[in-house]
């Protein structure tokens, strides 16, 4: 009596798990499909794209679209590919990430360990700054950048990204240092250590995880930014996202889908790489971005 029913229960449990796995795998395939299509399209010749199926593997693999995208595709009148814009993005992202992370670390240190009256108001103001729609600062910013002589320059974009990334890095470091025991700080003060010594000797050595989170978060946001790049850096100083958009949406000539896809993957590679290498921290960074704890 009990044996067959147990058997049934076991069997239905197996079916149930099979169902769960198949749903998860089908969804995974759907999530991967656009990336798969991008990659195979970038490896096909234009003729093969026109005659074949988007989903099929290339009959004849060609890297020509990649070479074209990198060094000879035309954006407007210039035909030197996206490589210059890729370097623009690198020159923008490295200093912007470094500066905003350092400032955020010091801000977080002050806001947790050297509090003064009004510290929570300052923190609240910085926190709110994370959530403003950037449209609200576009017009004044373009005026100020023009006034400073930084319009259409990479330095101008570095400034913009440092300013609007400060809120996030401060938030990350502040929440992280909040949990750091004050006793250690007090002990260091008794030993006569000053403000910077304490930071360097006591807090910095254990800041690795949050530094990684801040760097990944800032790197991804700044690399992927489009609105600031499009508003403040047209022409030669444009970052890769703006260049990619210009390439794909230029209305002249034949649409070279394979070159577009190669360029799109190139623009995505740095953040994908960061995500694959440091994915766990990336998730943690995203979570911290949702203002938890």
């Amino acid at each position: 009596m009990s044996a067959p029913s147990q058997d049934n229960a076991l069997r239905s449990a197996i079916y149930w798990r099979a169902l769960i796995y198949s749903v998860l795998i089908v969804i995974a395939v759907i999530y991967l499909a656009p990336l798969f299509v991008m990659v195979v399209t970038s490896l096909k010749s234009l003729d093969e794209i026109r005659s074949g199926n988007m989903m099929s593997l290339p009959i004849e693999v060609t890297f020509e679209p990649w070479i074209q995208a990198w060094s000879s595709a035309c954006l407007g009148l210039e035909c030197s590919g996206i490589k210059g814009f890729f370097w623009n993005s690198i020159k923008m992202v490295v200093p912007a990430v470094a500066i905003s992370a350092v400032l955020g670390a010091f801000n977080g240190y002050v806001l947790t360990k050297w509090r003064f009256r009004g510290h929570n108001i300052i923190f609240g103001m910085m926190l709110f700054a994370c959530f403003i729609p950037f449209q609200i600062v576009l017009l004044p910013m373009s005026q100020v950048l023009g006034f400073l002589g930084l319009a259409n320059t990479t330095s101008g974009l570095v400034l913009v990204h440092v300013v609007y990334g400060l809120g996030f890095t401060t938030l990350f470091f502040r929440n992280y240092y909040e949990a750091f025991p004050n006793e250690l700080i007090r002990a260091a003060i008794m030993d006569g250590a000053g403000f910077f010594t304490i930071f360097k000797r006591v807090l910095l050595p254990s800041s690795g995880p949050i530094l990684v989170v801040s760097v990944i978060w800032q790197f991804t946001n700044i690399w992927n930014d489009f609105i600031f790049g499009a508003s403040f850096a047209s022409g030669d100083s444009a970052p890769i996202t703006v260049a990619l958009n210009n390439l794909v949406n230029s209305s002249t000539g034949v649409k070279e889908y394979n070159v577009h896809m190669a360029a799109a993957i190139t623009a995505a590679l740095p953040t994908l790489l960061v995500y694959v290498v440091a994915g766990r921290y990336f998730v943690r960074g995203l979570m911290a971005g949702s203002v938890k704890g």
Partner: protein
Amino acid sequence: MKQLVDQAPAVSRADKGSDRAIGWLQEQLPKLVLAPSFAVIVLFVYGFILWTVYLSFSASRMLPNYSWAGLTQWDRLWNTLTWQIALDNLAVFSVLYIVLCLVIGLTLAILLDQKIRVEGGLRTLYLYPMALSFIVTGTAWKWFLNPGLGLERSMREWGFDDFTFDWLINPDMAIYTVVIAGVWQASGFVMAMFLAGLRGIDNEILKAAQIDGAPAWKIYTRIIIPQLGPVFMSAFVVLLHLAIKSFDLVIALTGGGPGNATELPATFMYSYSFTRNQIGVGAASAVFMLMTIAAIIVPYLYSELKGGRK
């Protein structure tokens, strides 16, 4: 404790006389370190907000013009058909985007929570779109949804001869392609939030319910999901904020078209400010966007900070 941390270095360092200046410096050092960032935020965030608010009441057209024009620009904004369309589109987009992301995110999180072998790998897969720029994902989806070459043709080649999928160029349906691409990009992130929430639930209650013989779906609907309230709230706030700011995705996917079928407030603001020489109207639309976001973010941040402090 705060006071002690505050003053101790000044007391230990400063002796008398000439050392007093150093003592003062030591005491003020934390504030001096914070000052530049604070000044930058005050100027570039709050100063710029006031600046844009002022522009929305000015006579600015092609160039900023600081003569007061009262509500002229606001009148113009509300009488612009494109703005009405942008708001309607935002309503459609944000409702669908938020609901779909929450439903898919929660479903994926619950399924992944069933002691799945390859959980780490699947999680990574669901999340990778979040690492990409909207410009990249917009480009990818534009290609994928291309009526002549993309999904439509693939389906026809596989034998579905009448399969038609032309949403991208159909003014009535184009906004839904933005929803599809947006949900694809963000649902993995929502899943990660829910998964973290699920892992934070007390196991004892669940075991007790299991021993009582409650079926799995009942445990979820009666015990687990009700406890995820705060996660729902956080996800909702983040998604709404993303929806209102959505700009890149529309630019890359549809460019606001066909016609202005996928215009959103963010794309409206950009084109009126920078290409249509209507700075005043653009500023007014930006102020409206800020007010919408602030109405949700400010109470949320307030309750989070309060709750965090206890």
